[in-house]
């Protein structure tokens, strides 16, 4: 792997890492498998892209993305808690609806951002090349998001959120309305995912309605890889593991795309298949181990 390719993978690891934090929050902390992310990632991208083409500051456009993602998460959580639709289905409904909404927001299936300002512009204006500027900026943002999530999970509210995922009966008996917590948690998760989507769009110079396909699977794979490599003994460790998992996952992808057997090689469109197989393997391994241990 070349140094240049490594920096590219690092940049992807950071920028998608913010999404992985969101997936970690719902899937692991809240125990709420949330497929909304496949729609909220392009939602953040679309909202930010439209804001940018209207001349809004790139950093301000990120705030819009955050807000839109939060709303998407709230919709899923409301469908689940108030209308009693099972979480997976509730999130699929929001995800499907977002497909139409994203096209409405962009006025078409995609928007090109060539020539618009983005979060890297200030550094590039200083003459720093893009392949350095992007891992740097995205790294700072990803570390900041990780720190913020670690802090939040240690607050009274964050602790109530952890307990809601772990033991809803117990936290209800301690006076917490778990519906409110689920709405907040799924909202925050999708805010992170949309934020990540906005950065991805700015980084690749385009927002596309299909860019969210496979987000949940990539997120899960990263969470699982991170836990396996870095552990999850404390909250801080688990959050950092999500980010590290994202980086390892992106490096692994870059490596996989470089493999050639004669004329055969992986193409980017094979990634979802590879990742799905990886997640299946990771989900099944503990059960197989358990079965072998019992024999």
């Amino acid at each position, binding site marked *: 792997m070349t140094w240049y390719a490594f920096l590219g993978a690092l940049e992807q690891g950071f920028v998608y890492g913010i999404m992985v934090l969101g997936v970690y929050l719902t899937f692991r902390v809240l125990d709420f498998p949330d497929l909304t992310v496949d729609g909220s990632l392009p939602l953040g991208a679309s909202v930010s892209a439209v804001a940018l083409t209207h001349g809004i500051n790139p950093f301000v456009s990120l705030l819009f993305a955050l807000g839109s993602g939060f709303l998407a998460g709230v919709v899923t959580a409301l469908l689940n808690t108030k209308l009693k639709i099972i979480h997976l289905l509730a999130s699929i409904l929001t995800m499907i609806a977002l497909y139409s909404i994203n096209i409405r927001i962009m006025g078409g299936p995609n928007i090109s951002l060539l020539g618009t300002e983005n979060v890297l512009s200030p550094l590039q204006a200083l003459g720093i090349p893009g392949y350095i500027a992007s891992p740097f900026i995205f790294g700072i943002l990803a570390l900041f998001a990780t720190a913020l999530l670690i802090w*939040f999970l*240690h*607050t*009274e*509210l*964050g*602790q*109530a959120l*952890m*307990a809601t995922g*772990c*033991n809803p*009966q*117990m*936290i*209800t*008996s*301690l*006076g*917490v*309305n*778990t519906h409110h917590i689920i709405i907040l948690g799924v909202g925050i998760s999708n805010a992170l995912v949309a934020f990540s989507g906005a950065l991805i769009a700015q980084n690749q110079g385009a927002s596309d309605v299909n860019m969210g396909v496979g987000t949940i699977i990539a997120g899960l794979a990263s969470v699982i890889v991170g836990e396996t490599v870095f552990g999850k003994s404390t909250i801080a460790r688990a959050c950092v593991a999500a980010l590290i998992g994202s980086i390892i996952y992106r490096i692994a992808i870059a490596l996989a795309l470089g493999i050639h057997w004669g004329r055969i090689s992986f193409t980017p469109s094979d990634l979802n298949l590879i990742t799905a197989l990886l997640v299946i393997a990771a989900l099944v391994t503990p059960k197989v181990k358990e079965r072998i241990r019992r024999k």
Partner: protein
Amino acid sequence: MITLKAITKYFNRGSINEVLSLDNINLDVEPGDFVAIIGSNGAGKSTLLNCVAGSHLLDSGKILLNHTEITVWPEHKRAKFMGRVFQDPLLGTCSTLSIEQNLALAKKRGQPRGLGIGVKNRDRDLFREKLKVLGLGLENRLQDKVGLLSGGQRQALTMIMATMIHPEVLLLDEHTAALDPKTAHQIIDLTNKIIHELKLTTLMVTHNMKQALEFGNRLIMLNMGRIIMDVRGQEKKNLTVQDLLAGFYKVQGEAFSSDKMLLVNP
């Protein structure tokens, strides 16, 4: 303190699986009452506690807490006034959080939760002091995950958590049933001690007749969703296992003979 007025609870109402779980129950629990509740399996003991706690809403009747009607209050709202310990030691605590994190969650029972830090430094001394009473050495393990504790240790911790903020009513549902006899003994002694020290109004479901006779100032026997015995004070002190069995067989016998009748007259 707690008043139940003609409360009735069905499950699966209107289907072939319909169960009348509580059948027109009236009960007036006085402040400071320690009520032991016994009855055979399926008598409705858990349902009674769940209805008081708000885990189930009633089909009819009223529940009053200190003269305030709470019949339609959701569970989390009632929690401000109630401490609970469940039969399953896993239900009362959160295994992925540490001992101190669990205690801190309990210390906020019924209060709004914000962005302040969850486990506050100044609370740790209080936690240690409360845990020391248990004599289990947990005061030196504040940062250990609760998942590492045994069932008995978790149940002891749940007792501390349920009474951390003074509850108007303490609800115990067979909270020693899942423990080995020795541990069960320790937990029931701890329970009795806390209840008397804090003068808690308590409803304690138990499967153990001896426990029901030994503890509490009042005893209630449930059968098929109805109260069939309610004894208090000196009368309760004089009660024997024989009396309970007699009460028990009286209704069970009836149920048995009515079953027989059904068989004889199809």
